[in-house]
Structure formats: structure tokens, C-alpha cells
């Protein structure tokens, strides 16, 4: 039975959450390692999105009115809690809008250069 163990590793000050799968004896294959940088104790930027809806989908909304500077994810992509989804320029700040939870991006509702109002849905997670 392969067992998956999770580790938190800090490299050059960046925290990575790593899953390591133990493949057992008789195999020379290296353990599969999936690494994605996470920002330690990232507070969710969009508290509304956290509540989730009945279907289990979470809508990540713009917490501030602003300009979409960059979209960091595509539909279908798997994201970890705390991963940056969108950079939203507002209040003269490049705000990182992060995933409130682990999930899969089911829809990206904005693109680079869009102006959004507070409460507009940016990304839908499942």
C-alpha cells in the first residue's frame, strides 16, 4: 500500500507543502513529489467566498474595486489554499487574491485589464 505523507519544507525562505508517496520495496522509482509554494498562514482575502454555497463551489470575489493586473490560474487547474489566483490593483496596492481552500478552478470570470467592483466574482473553485 503506497502511503502519502505530507511535509512542509522551507527553501530560501519560501515554504513548500510537499506530498511524498512511499512506493514500497522492489522499485527503484523515485518518490513522486508535487510541490507548490504556499504562503504561510495566508489569510483569506475574500471572506465571503469562504462560506461556500450548497454545491460546494466557492466563488472568490473581489474584496475591493480595482484593476485586474494578472490572472495566475486557468480553468481546470488544481490550486492549494493560499495560492495566488489573481493580482488585483486597488488602493495603489497589487493585492494578491488567494484561494480560500484547496480545489480545482472551474471558471475564471475575469481577464487581465478588467475593472472590477467589490463583490464581483473573479474565480470559481470546486
Amino acid at each position: 500500500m503506497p502511503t502519502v505523507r505530507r511535509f512542509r519544507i522551507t527553501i530560501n525562505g519560501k515554504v513548500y507543502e510537499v506530498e511524498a508517496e512511499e512506493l514500497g520495496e522492489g522499485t527503484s522509482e523515485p518518490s513522486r513529489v508535487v510541490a507548490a509554494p504556499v504562503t504561510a498562514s495566508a489569510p483569506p482575502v475574500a471572506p465571503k467566498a469562504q462560506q461556500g454555497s450548497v454545491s460546494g463551489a466557492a466563488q472568490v470575489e473581489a474584496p475591493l474595486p480595482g484593476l485586474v493586473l494578472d490572472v495566475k490560474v486557468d480553468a481546470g487547474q488544481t490550486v492549494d489554499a493560499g495560492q495566488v489566483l489573481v493580482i488585483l490593483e486597488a488602493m495603489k496596492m497589487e493585492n494578491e487574491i488567494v484561494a480560500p481552500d484547496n480545489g480545482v478552478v472551474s471558471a475564471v470570470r475575469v481577464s487581465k485589464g478588467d475593472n472590477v467592483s467589490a463583490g464581483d466574482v473573479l474565480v470559481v473553485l470546486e
Partner: protein
Amino acid sequence: MDKKEELKRRQADIEAMGGPSRVERQHQMGKWSARERIQYLLDANTFEEIGAHVTHRGTRFGMDAVQAPADGVVTGFGRIEGRPVYIFAQDFTVLGGSLGEMHAAKIQRVQDLALKSGVPIIGLNDSGGARIQEGVDALNGYGEIFKRNTWASGVIPQITVIMGPSAGGAVYSPALTDVIIMVRHTAQMFITGPQVIQAVTGETVSAEDLGGADTHLKRSGVAHLAVDSDAEALDGVRRVLSFLPQNWMEEPPVVKSRDPLERIDETLARVVPDDANKPYDVAGIIGSILDEGDFFPLQKGYADNLVVGLGRIGGHPVGIVANQPRVLAGTLDINASDKLARFVRFADAFNIPIVTLVDTPGYLPGTSQEYGGIIRHGAKVLYAYAEATVPKVTLILRKAYGGAYLAMCSRSLGADLVLAWPTAEIAVMGPDGAANIIFRREIEGSDNPAETKAAKAEEYRQQFANPYVAAGHGYIDAVIEPEKTRGHLAQALMALYNKQDHRPKRHHGNIPV
């Protein structure tokens, strides 16, 4: 019967609480019994129970036949880290921990003793609510408790742990205390429960979604701490009390710290990005300043654009207030204002100096903020800082613009010392906004307005986006090297510990609640 035997028999009945099967059910729900909680919380063998033999006086609805050991609440006093505390723990195994006349009287009794003695009081709540059979006497019991909570406010620390249901009027005693800790999945607080809400408004919501620990930590701001078990909740009580004095007349406890005060942290010189539009995590700065990087945040998850919590510098407790640039750009909004004002008043009540770390572009603009009353909520920030008489040290990290500069414990509001990093920008507004107003005609009349605007903004930035104009006018006492921040703050606090400050005599201020 032998008199000694009778005492033993009675004690055994009282200590058995609702009986083995009910205690077992309590365990199955993931909860400890009232006595197990007290035993875990207090120093070993220090609990002295009072009122164990108190019993209810109900006669209606068959109550005359009902035995209720200790009337469903264990009360008394003991020690935590050697310091006395009063405690009451509601016992869900006896009549569901319901609050009747005598149950309430027992709580009032420890409240009275704690207040007179200047000793903290801890309430462990696990109660189905008012004991309906006792009617208006139960209601009166709540009222008498609320009154004592209010009288004790700011005199002795009052700490509440919600470890089971707390519904209806029962929520208001906790709400009047200083700190509320909630246990996930077993604790719920609400004024009206899911059934009533379903019947009246048609909304369907689970008890946990409506009033669970995470709801109150992240959404309503009612809870200060959410934890996963009874043990963790009680550890939280000990941790909170470690920062607090016994009462408002005493200084908070000082511990030995091996972390050198003059510790230099090179990373602080790089933490604020050169680009003023880039966010960063203020938690790193807080950790660097405090002894052993040990920070105890309160209300983490609620209004995270502002961080509040407790730590120590040189072994002395300090309250930390900090803007968080990575959430909502570090703006002050309604919820952050409430969070800040409540924390500053808590720290001030218990002689805990306040260190404020400033990096905010201002109050959050928007109709929802204006309609929601940001004027009266934001005013609480000014009120709390200006009212506080504890040592107040402010450190401006980067942006300090306009009204928010004033609000974040500026010299004008009564900061004792204001320090700034070389990256500080103190101005009426940000460079772009200022250029737009001051140089509007030149920008509009220009062949290339965008370029002119950028040039003028840069000109403004050169002139005003630094700490030296404010320092030149005496609003900043010192511009410090970031890597030496801890040493400078420690020196400042040391020079302020004996500070005496007084406000005019009055009934009480009229904070815009």
C-alpha cells in the same frame, strides 16, 4: 448515620454530577465534564469548590422530585501559574447545564468574590439555556450575571470559554467579557437558533454554520480564538492570563527573557518592497520584534487587514496593533476599526503598553463602508488611542496617509514616541492623488497628460514620500534602521514604563459605539 459518612455520601453524589451514563455521553460528544475541565485548567490540587451543596428551589412542573447535584454548575477558586483565579463551569450532565435561580446565584457569588478580591474570573460555558421550569427567576439570574460582568469590566480580566451550546440570553454574559474562546464543532452561540430562524425567515442553516467557532472567529468577530478541543481551549485561557495582571491596579506579569534586546535582524531591511504598490506580510516584522518571535494573535481570521495580539519585549507584555498590507491593501474598514478599538481599550484597561506598526493607504472607500457607518466605527479608533493612558509607541513602516495616519496612534492623538523606518511616507494622500489635485491645471494643459502626471507624482514623492518632513516638524521622534527595530522599541518602552497620564474626571466617556 455517622456524620462523617454523611458528608462523604453527599460529596460522592455531587462529584458524580449527572451520573456515569451522562458523563459518558458528554465524552462521546468530544467534551470533558465540568470537573475534568477544571482539573485540567487549574494548577494541580488547587481547586477549592464553594456552593457544592446548593440546590434548586423549584417545585413546579415536577421539579420538586428532581435532584440536581451542585445545581448544574461547579464554582470555586484555584490557581493558574500560582496566581489565584475564580472559576465557574457549567455542567451539561445535570439538567443540560440549564441556568436556574440557584445556578445563577452560584455564578454571581464567584463574580462578587472575584471583583472584591481583584482576581480574574473564568467562565466555562456548556448550557442548554434558561431552566424554563424556573421561569422568571431564571431570567432574573441572567440579568444579575450581566450586571456583574459589566461592573467587573476593566477591573478584573474576565475570560470565557464556550464549550457547548450557548443560546439566547446566555450569549450576553460571554459577550460582556474580555476574551471569548470557542471549541470547534461542540460550541455554538446564537441569539435565535436554527429552528427559530427556519420558522420565522425560512432560512435553513446548521447550528455550526450559524454560530460555530469559525463563524464567530471569521465572520461575526464575536470570538477571539477558535480551537479544536477542550484541552486546547483551556491552554488558551492559561496563555491569555499569562499576559494579564490580576486586576487594573497591577502591572502585567514579567517573565525572564533570554532573547537579547539588541538583537539585530538583517531581514527587516528588506521586508518592505521598494515598490510601494507591492504587498508584504507584516507578521514577519511582528515576529522579529517580539521575544523569541512569540506572538499570540487575537481575532485572527476576522478583519485580517489589521493584526492585533499579545507578545513580550524583554519579558514585559505588549499589545501589538499592525496594518496588514497583504489584505485589503492594509486599509482600515469598519470591522478593522472595531477590532482595533476593542483591543486597544482591552490593553489600556490592563496596563499593557501598545506598539502600533503603521502601513496603511487610508480608510477603505466604498458605498458599503459609508452606509455601514465607517464614520462612527472609524471614530472609535481615534477615541481608543486618544483615551489610552498606557505607554504608546508607534512605528511607521511605510504608508501613513491622511486620516488613517492620524488614526494609527499618531503623535497628534497622543503617541508617546513615534519612530519611522526610512521607507516611511507620511502625507495627506498618496503621490498620484496629490499630484492630480495640486497640479491639475498643468496636467490637463499638457500635451502628454499621463507623462506630466507621472512626473508631478514623482516630484511629490521626492518631496513628501519620506519621513523627514514629518520628522522636521517634530511629528516623528526618530528615524531608525529597520534591522535595529527591536532594540529601539525595547529602549522606548523601558523609558516609558513608569508613565503616569490622567484624563479629566467624568462619569465615563461617550465612545461612538
